[in-house]
């Protein structure tokens, strides 16, 4: 069931309607059934894989909690290893079957007819499962004694496809208490839905058509200016589609009385890469920080507490970003993307050794703008292997550095990107994601009318994106 489709619209409206009519004790069961219905609409095998993962982790959590007093680290590690193995079977299995078939074909044998696809959103489920087990071991959470609640957490359809990545200790308590959908929640949900649709359909939809047609297939057919601008447009497209998607899901989730994590916080206003990763794909970045970066950093610091110790500075950020690259897809170009971003953080850590701190925290405006520009430029360069395979990435980069021609840019994408930045700026400047709620009534109505009109234009031109899958 595609997200941006009339079927999904009908599904959400009816789900909200039925949910709000049901007595509290049946609401979680309904959410679970609706979520599995949604997942099965993609592929029943996805639902089967999710169910197996859910049963295993629910049971393992009980075992973990019974053995909290035991010091053996393998009590936790075994659970984590099983989750990762399950994930790798799907992530790498499809590729392994492909390679095997190539070999069989070359050797003259008949190929294996077998398909193995990574279930939609499975990488999120695996990371959620791991953090759930780790939090129980760290005594930050208790194992859920209600299988229905746990299964609902795992399958909850607003976060099922592309996150946000939710921690069990934050999500599960919301299922235990009665859902509250008051006026404030309705206002926030509507705001998020409108923002989400504006970003993901209007802005991302327009940017899709304004990126030069085959620039990511044959970049050298274009001038260097177009190649650079194509990259910038892609960055804004990715941001608006992903941020818009998660805002839409958060808005829908609000109608079930469940708060999902804010996943983007004006990332183009970041001052450095550490700041960037606190603003971009926040739920994943926080997961990586809590379960990869911090444990590694502390482990190295215990051996040598000096910040100047080079392994302390190099290994944690590189490993963390390589894990991120792998999570996005087990391909060499994504690992390269991870390594490049790890490198940026590493360079920042090294520079911080020589730059004196500024305890007042005040930074002049030109330095803030320069910081944002540098971070955005480098993040976009790193996005080349994120978007393209390795051979095409090399060609794309060559197309930038050879700098053969200066063209006047097409103004239209810059207008769209300007609107995107303006939306962000309102939130950034006010420090309030929901600043739009405080605007006057006529302004809000006008903006909603413009958004609806723009959405109709986008749909008529068939620019609306397919469901955003990340990864």
């Amino acid at each position, binding site marked *: 069931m595609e997200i941006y489709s009339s079927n999904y619209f009908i599904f959400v409206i009816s789900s909200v309607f039925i949910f709000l009519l049901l007595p509290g004790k049946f609401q979680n069961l309904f959410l679970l059934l609706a979520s599995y219905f949604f997942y099965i609409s993609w592929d029943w095998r996805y639902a089967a894989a999710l169910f197996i993962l859910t049963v295993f982790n629910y049971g393992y959590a009980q075992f973990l909690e019974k053995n909290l007093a035991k010091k053996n680290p393998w009590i936790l590690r075994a659970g984590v290893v099983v989750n990762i193995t399950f994930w790798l079977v799907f992530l790498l299995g499809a590729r392994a079957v492909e390679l095997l078939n190539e070999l069989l074909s070359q050797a003259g044998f008949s190929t294996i007819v077998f398909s193995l696809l990574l279930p939609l959103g499975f990488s999120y489920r695996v990371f959620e499962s791991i*953090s759930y087990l780790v*939090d129980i071991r*760290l*005594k*930050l959470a208790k194992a859920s004694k209600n299988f229905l609640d746990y299964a609902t957490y795992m399958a909850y359809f607003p976060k099922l496809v592309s996150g946000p990545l939710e*921690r069990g200790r934050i999500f599960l308590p919301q299922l235990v208490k009665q859902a509250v959908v008051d006026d404030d929640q309705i206002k926030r949900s509507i705001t998020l839905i409108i923002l989400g649709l504006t970003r993901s359909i209007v802005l991302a939809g327009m940017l899709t058509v304004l990126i030069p047609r085959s620039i990511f297939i044959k970049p050298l057919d274009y001038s260097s200016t177009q190649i650079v601008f194509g990259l910038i447009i892609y960055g804004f497209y990715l941001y608006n589609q992903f941020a818009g998607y998660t805002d839409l899901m958060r808005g829908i989730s609000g109608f079930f009385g469940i708060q999902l994590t804010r996943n983007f916080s004006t990332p183009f206003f970041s*001052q*450095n890469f*550490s*700041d960037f990763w*606190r603003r971009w794909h926040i739920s994943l970045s926080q997961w990586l*920080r*809590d*379960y990869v*970066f*911090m*444990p590694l*950093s*502390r482990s190295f*610091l*215990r051996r040598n*507490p000096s*910040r100047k110790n080079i392994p*302390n*500075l190099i290994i*944690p950020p590189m490993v963390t970003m390589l894990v991120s690259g792998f999570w996005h897809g087990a391909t060499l170009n994504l690992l390269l993307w991870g390594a490049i971003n790890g490198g940026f953080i590493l360079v*920042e*850590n090294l520079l*911080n050794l020589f730059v*004196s*701190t*500024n*305890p007042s*925290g005040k*930074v002049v405006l030109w330095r803030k703008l320069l910081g944002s520009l540098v971070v955005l430029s480098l993040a976009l360069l790193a996005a080349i292997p994120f978007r393209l395979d390795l051979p095409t990435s090399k060609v794309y980069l060559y197309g930038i550095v050879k700098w053969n021609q200066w063209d006047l840019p097409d103004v239209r994408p810059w207008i769209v990107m300007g609107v995107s930045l303006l939306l962000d700026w309102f939130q950034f400047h006010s420090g309030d994601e929901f600043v739009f709620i405080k605007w006057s009534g006529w302004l809000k109505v006008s903006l909603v009318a413009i958004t609806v009109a723009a959405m109709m234009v986008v749909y008529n031109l068939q620019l609306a994106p397919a469901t955003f899958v990340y990864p």
Partner: protein
Amino acid sequence: MDRSEIVEKVRQFVCTELLKKPDYALQEDEPLFSTGVIDSFAMAQIGVFIETEFELYIPDPELTVENMDTVTQITDRIIQGLQAI
């Protein structure tokens, strides 16, 4: 160990090891991470400092900007942890 001793140890660690300004008059409620004065690597350093100085382990998911942004917050978390032992 009373609260003022803990505050002083934390302040001294932050000023000497993280800010590299031992004589800086750091206020107890002065934000450190949220204003970008120090980075997330420094959070790991704070975690290890608390382990070494107070023999208290604070789990990684709790070492966040929301929980540990000021000397006051760090001190409160240490006291909470010590009372639970």
